[in-house]
């Protein structure tokens, strides 16, 4: 077992445990903080996949913005500090069975695929992922349209969210 594999196993286990805590913890601020731990684990997985830029973006966008928005929303939608009532609905058992089945089904489907235990090719020397990404996002033959549409999507989200949440009547 190589060092990289050990790191992956530790990080993967921590990520999954933190993910479980997100969906089971009662206190929602704690759930949001566990979400931060999960997302950080995912960022480390990106670095293992040699996608450093995405790892940094993951921290900036998810931990720096989305997690904070979640904590703000929790603070805003709460009467008492203590949560009242059950944290899961009566159908939680069905949900658990469904998700276990989903996991089993996904793994079964994947392991029938021939490329399942593929090994990564070495990265060619001088390969600059950010440069390539910039090229892909800006060249007319690349992904210009998704790039611009993403900006429109975010504009729509901003307008919609501002209108929805804070329409003064």
């Amino acid at each position: 077992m190589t060092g990289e594999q050990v790191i992956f196993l530790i990080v993967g286990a921590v990520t999954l445990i933190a993910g479980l805590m997100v969906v089971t913890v009662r206190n929602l601020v704690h759930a949001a903080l566990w979400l931060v731990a999960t997302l950080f684990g995912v960022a480390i997985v990106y670095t293992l996949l040699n996608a450093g830029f995405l790892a940094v973006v993951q921290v900036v966008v998810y931990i720096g913005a989305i997690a904070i928005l979640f904590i703000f929303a929790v603070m805003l939608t709460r009467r008492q500090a203590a949560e009242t009532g059950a944290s899961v609905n009566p159908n939680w058992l069905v949900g658990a069975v469904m998700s276990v089945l989903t996991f089993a089904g996904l793994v079964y489907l994947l392991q029938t695929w021939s490329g399942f235990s593929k090994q990564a090719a070495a990265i060619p020397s001088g390969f600059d992922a950010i440069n390539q990404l910039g090229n892909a996002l800006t060249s007319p033959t690349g992904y210009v349209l998704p790039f611009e549409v993403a900006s429109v999507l975010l504009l729509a989200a901003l307008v919609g969210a501002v209108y929805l949440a804070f329409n003064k009547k």
Partner: protein
Amino acid sequence: MNEWLYVGLFFIVGLIIPAGAIGAGWLFGPKKPNPIKQSTYECGIEPVGEGWVQFKAQYYIFALVFLVFDVETVFLFPWAVRLGQLGMFAVVEGIVFILILVAGLVYTWRKGMLEWA
């Protein structure tokens, strides 16, 4: 060897050293708790009600606008890296992107959401 390994070392050492300092403080400091010392500090007045107050909706608006701008500005970095090798097309593309972004800011501004009301 992955360069991120070194960054990971910084994370680990960056946690160990402050933890050591705090541990030393815990070791040398006195530990004589009493109820008054442990009540929350509100300038000497008895704390009233809960500590976890419900807070102003305005904070959420700023976090919301920030989220959208954050994501979009991060997208601009690969564009900025490539800009030196690209022609006018890419520049115009980036400017269109930023203008769409600024349109959101203008909307929020005109709706009066940027006021601390």
